[in-house]
């Protein structure tokens, strides 16, 4: 029971990270209708930017933890958002009316570009930092097994909730959000009614990348490591989360992220940690076979 509670906490923290990445996938899929394969690598870039800006800030004498975190968050979000914008501008926009496979393949190419760019520029070795947010609470203790809730887990969940609230306000209440929803339904009609489709799609990538960079920062804080290859697996898992929740649905992405985080954590805890990725990928396959629209997705009607 205690073990279970501990794994539940760990799973929710991990699931929050997956959920934030999944939002980027689900938004882009909803509007442009493509799997942004490079999104996992945007997450990785976000982690790297956070790491580097953290190092630089500490070395110039900024040591107060809240100030550092805030500055790192801002730098990482801004820079990674620009990465998202650039990727869309270079690799996806020229292909918008190309044939079906073109954006997908271009995205795979972009994914290689990003991961190998960071390998070339920052080296192939895993970078690790000492924990920044330390401490935590012991919730309850029975038979020598303490269920702990660490401050970093609280930070992750609170940040995720705050970002989700801000994000739902953005989509539901602002002009940009309305444009995004309009583009999702019908790009041509939205353009006819004065929505700047190009700009809206760009903004979608920018927001998705910013959220992914926060996920990258949280991954860095939680595990203390980044490496150039982490975007690939995290990207597939986050995509699995988006599919599980119903692609195109924002609450679904978060729900799917939590589900994947929990499943992976429990699998690693009770079965084998080597095969935890297999568990996540198998879920992707099973969900697509039995529940192609996901938990909260709308069924897609094929018109002839």
């Amino acid at each position, binding site marked *: 029971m205690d073990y279970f509670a501990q794994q539940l906490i760990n799973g929710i923290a991990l699931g929050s990270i997956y959920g934030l990445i999944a939002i980027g996938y689900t938004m882009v899929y909803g509007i442009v209708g493509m*799997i942004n394969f490079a999104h996992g690598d945007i997450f990785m870039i976000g982690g*790297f*930017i956070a*790491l*580097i*800006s953290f*190092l*630089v800030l500490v*070395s110039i004498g900024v040591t107060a933890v809240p100030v550092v975190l805030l500055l790192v968050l801002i*730098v990482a979000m801004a*820079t990674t958002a620009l*990465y998202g914008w*650039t990727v869309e501008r*270079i*690799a996806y926009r*020229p*292909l918008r009316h*190309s*044939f*079906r*496979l*073109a*954006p997908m*393949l*271009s995205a*795979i*190419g*972009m*994914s*290689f*570009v990003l991961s*190998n*760019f*960071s*390998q*070339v*520029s*920052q*080296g*192939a*070795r895993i*970078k*690790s930092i000492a924990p920044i947010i330390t401490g935590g609470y012991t919730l309850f203790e029975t038979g020598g097994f303490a269920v702990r809730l660490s401050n970093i887990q609280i930070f992750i969940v609170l940040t995720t909730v705050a970002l989700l609230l801000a994000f739902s306000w953005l989509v539901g209440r602002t002009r940009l959000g309305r444009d995004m929803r309009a583009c999702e339904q019908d790009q041509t009609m939205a353009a006819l009614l004065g929505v700047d489709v190009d700009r809206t799609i760009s903004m979608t990538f920018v927001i998705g990348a910013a959220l992914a960079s926060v996920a990258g920062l949280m991954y860095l804080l939680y595990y203390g490591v980044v490496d150039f290859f982490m975007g*690939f*697996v995290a990207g*597939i898992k986050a*995509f699995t989360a988006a*599919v599980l929740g119903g692609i195109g649905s924002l609450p679904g992405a978060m729900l799917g992220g939590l589900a994947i985080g929990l499943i992976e954590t429990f699998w690693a805890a009770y079965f084998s940690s*080597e*095969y935890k*990725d*297999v568990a996540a*990928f*198998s879920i*992707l*396959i099973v969900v*697509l*076979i039995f529940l*192609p629209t996901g938990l909260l997705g709308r069924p897609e009607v094929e018109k*002839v």
Partner: protein
Amino acid sequence: MAHPSSDTHSAAPPHGFAFILRRALISAAIALVLFALMIGVRTEAGPTGVLIYWTRFGDLAALVGAVFVGSIIVELIRTFLGPVEIARRVPDGLRNGLSALRRFAVPALLVFAVLIPVIFYQQRYILDLSILVLTYVMLGWGLNIVVGLAGLLDLGYVAFYAVGAYSYALLSTTFGLSFWICLPLAGILAAFWGMMLGFPVLRLKGDYLAIVTLAFGEIIRIVLLNWQSLTGGPNGISGIPRPTAFGIPLTAGPDGLAARLGIPFSPTHRIVFLFYLILALALLTNWATIRLRRLPIGRAWEALREDEVACRALGINTVVTKLTAFALGAMFGGFAGAFFATRQGFISPESFSFQESALVLAIVVLGGMGSQLGVALAAVAMIGGFELFRGFDQYRMLVFGVAMVLLMIWRPRGLIGHRAPSVYLARRDAIAADLVKEGHG
């Protein structure tokens, strides 16, 4: 200003020098922000294990400068060429010329391929490279059945390559079976796995299919990596038997092929034998594909690629059609895998990463999806291009990624190929098949 609207539309806005400069400055500014931290600061674990960093502002300045100059050049080219949309459709005359050329090119290339070991007998490097290229030609042709003909986007093709390689490695090292018995077994096992993948994904389309096949490929790789007792885990399987010329070993011993033929032994014999083996296997793949295209099942694949709903409405069994495509594509992947295992003598999960799948898919797409000649030439171009970057290993995948993006922007339909159905009406339709939107299959 009689026709203001036509004025603004017909004449492109004058791209003066100020305009070009402004755009270049914006690009450079963006590059500066993008690269400031990733290039300008280099992190590495210091001597005590704590992460340290040093700055590389010289590299950063050079890169930003390169973006600035490059952007000016691109803008200048654009201004001089004007806003021309590159004609995607090749003119008919050129196309006829090309097809005439193709008629001679295919036999010429074939003769050249057969003669490679004769011409380059002394250059071991070229022989090895040709074997590698032919392996990818075969993989490309195998995947072409799934992607090019049936239109099913498969990102996990390397899984079948792995199944073939491990089948041969395990069967030969455990049971001592010979290559010629294992080769068909490897193909059958891979085809079986192709069916295993194909069955659950029957209902999936497009991007979903792509991501599931990718997940399948990763599952296979992770299982190979972790099933220590069977596959040796990350250490792989070594000591895989070399192929024999139908039972006669290619060794220096008294019962070796060289001794029996009464010629002096040379290690190149085995390379030449491997070369002809993979050439034969690749040509078998090609021959099977060409023949299958003329059979009802091949027609059904192409129909499925064009429009699945119409296919079903016409009474084509899409289940059988998809499964045969997966199984046959996988079977040829399995043959190639068995060949790979016997050539290397050592295999490990590292050889079967997602990058391999992406490379083979890039070959198929570059070759024009469906064109046999195109796939072969694309394999030569891709692997040749990779070899050019042999000295700069870490930049190899970076350049590959950039090439993939640029290729999709400039020639999304591949360098040579155009998606022509095998059967078409003698009278040209008002709307040709390559003008309409591709069906989602």
